[in-house]
């Protein structure tokens, strides 16, 4: 039975309406709570599903975790000797991500500083719109650019034997993560109280001194979070790297080598691995591996943001 309100609003119609409005309120409250919890439920359900698909091979006796993590031999459909080693794939993911960050972080943070501190209001609005537009380009379009435009330039202007390689993938991923770094980085810089700026200017600091000695230290947690979210984007990206990196199982020795990433490998092979086969389960296991990597990156970002809030 629904509880009566403490101040009973009198008998008859008024009383009945308040009963229904109370019910409605509770229903809305329940719906909002449900949608709040659903995010957690979905994440747990996804993890549970992936884990359930991978579990039979994870707990089987033939499974060798050392070989899985540290062997470079990836022969999922071999006719003579099936081997599942993911080291080359992990190295590919790490290599492309690091390269992308080496390119994206200077550009992203530089753009964030420029947008928030150096440009006038009109330029600022234009830049923000354009950067948001950059974030809205679908990844398959980036992949197409990598395959047709960048790969030709690579062959022409570098010593790369083939145009689809780690540098190509890194540039594309950098272009995709720059918008994230800029918008979150700019938010972090804007969150620095104006009194800091006023104090620095009052003490005779130049603009550069203001940026490097006051703003960057004050906003460092927010900026780090921006970079880590960019990393998360780069690690998880699939379509563009599948098209840009050359998809070769190979531990890279230089930035012009072709590589294959964990995500691209799942995208390319899961479609035709027979459901329930060992290959299928191993691919889900690489999914868990990827989940662990992105989870660690996101957790790090979250902890850093939390650290900023506490200060």
């Amino acid at each position: 039975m629904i509880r009566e309100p403490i101040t009973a609003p009198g008998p008859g119609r008024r009383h009945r309406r308040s009963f229904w409005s109370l019910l409605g309120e509770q229903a809305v409250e329940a719906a909002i709570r449900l949608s709040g919890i659903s995010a957690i439920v979905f994440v747990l359900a996804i993890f549970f599903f992936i884990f359930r698909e991978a579990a039979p091979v994870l707990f089987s006796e033939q499974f060798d975790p050392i070989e899985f993590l540290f062997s470079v031999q990836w022969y999922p459909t071999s006719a003579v000797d099936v081997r599942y080693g993911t080291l080359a794939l992990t190295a590919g993911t790490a290599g492309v991500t690091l390269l992308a960050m080496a390119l994206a972080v200077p550009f992203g943070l530089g753009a964030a500083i420029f947008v928030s501190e150096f440009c006038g209001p009109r330029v600022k609005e234009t830049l923000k719109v354009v950067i948001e537009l950059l974030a809205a380009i679908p990844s398959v379009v980036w992949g197409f650019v990598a395959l047709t435009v960048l790969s030709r330039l690579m062959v022409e202007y570098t010593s790369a034997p083939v145009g689809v390689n780690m540098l190509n993938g890194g540039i594309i991923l950098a272009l995709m993560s720059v918008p994230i770094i800029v918008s979150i980085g700019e938010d972090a810089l804007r969150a620095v109280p104006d009194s800091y700026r006023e104090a620095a200017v009052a003490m005779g600091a130049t603009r550069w001194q203001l940026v490097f000695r006051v703003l960057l230290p004050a906003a460092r947690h927010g900026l780090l979070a921006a970079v880590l979210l960019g990393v998360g984007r780069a690690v998880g990206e699939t379509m563009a790297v599948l098209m840009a990196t050359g998809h070769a199982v190979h531990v890279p020795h230089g930035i012009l080598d072709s590589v294959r990433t964990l995500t691209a490998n799942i995208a390319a092979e899961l479609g035709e691995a027979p459901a329930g086969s060992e290959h299928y389960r191993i691919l889900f296991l690489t999914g868990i591996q990827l989940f662990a990597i992105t989870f660690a990156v996101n957790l790090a970002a979250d902890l850093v943001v939390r650290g900023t809030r506490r200060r």
Partner: protein
Amino acid sequence: MTPGLRRPAAVRRGLAAVLAAAALVPAGCRPRSGDVAIQNKGSDTMVNVAQAWAETYQTVAPGVNVEVSGGGSGTGIAALIKGTVHIANASRDVKAEEAEQVRRNTGLDPVDFKVGYDALAIYVHPANPLDAITFDQLAGIYREDGALVSWSHLGAAVPGCKSDEIVRVSRQSSSGTYEFFRERVLSNRDFKLGSRDLNGSKEVVELVSTTPCAIGYSGMGYATPRVKILKVARQAGATAYPPTVESTWNQSYPIARSLHMYTLGAPAGPVKAYLAWILSADGQRILEQSGYVPVSPKGGVREAR
């Protein structure tokens, strides 16, 4: 008072309306009477020509709809085992255990129709001076233990390829083309790791055309003017043949395979008519236009069995 036991009249009316609507829905979804749908699924290699056949056949027999989907030879045969397709396309033979599964599940034998041939061409960049290649050299380039890694090993100096490295272009491991190349050229041994494994026949040709150092394999139907096709010899000293219709028929070109369509039991009615049309001169001409090799030198006037 105990509320909620009696259902209000409005709710009952609503329920009746919903039930009535539900009863009406299937009536609207029925296909036009007289139309026949043939389900056709399987090999990615064959999906282009299967599509071309299906489209042209609509003008030949307007009441018959052929629904084509790809997914790979294995996918098509799996659908045949489940009995969900009329025709399965396969760029390889049905294996004995698959035929057994078909028999156990459906009580019918898979019946094989050979509808054409596909020759795998070896593609290089047009700047590559090489003209022919042997089976041993291909194995040396692609096989796990192969020692051929640079073009100078083959005695070729490729202009535009500064690194001299042979860039191997291959297919993803689930592809039927990949399996066929592995079986025929690598004697079922494994590929050397580090090849660029692309997701389509067309992509292989595309990448080779922009990469001076590259070598790749793909169906001869995918040739473009921007790549060069190498002749292939069975061994050093033997005559090398280019992939052509004639060299496929007389089996002098060594990397060719037959294309199959499988039905459940001997086909009847529209399926039988469709297969007969595919093997007719019209159907075989479409196959040849799609870049494959027709079944017989005479242009194919065989009837479906």
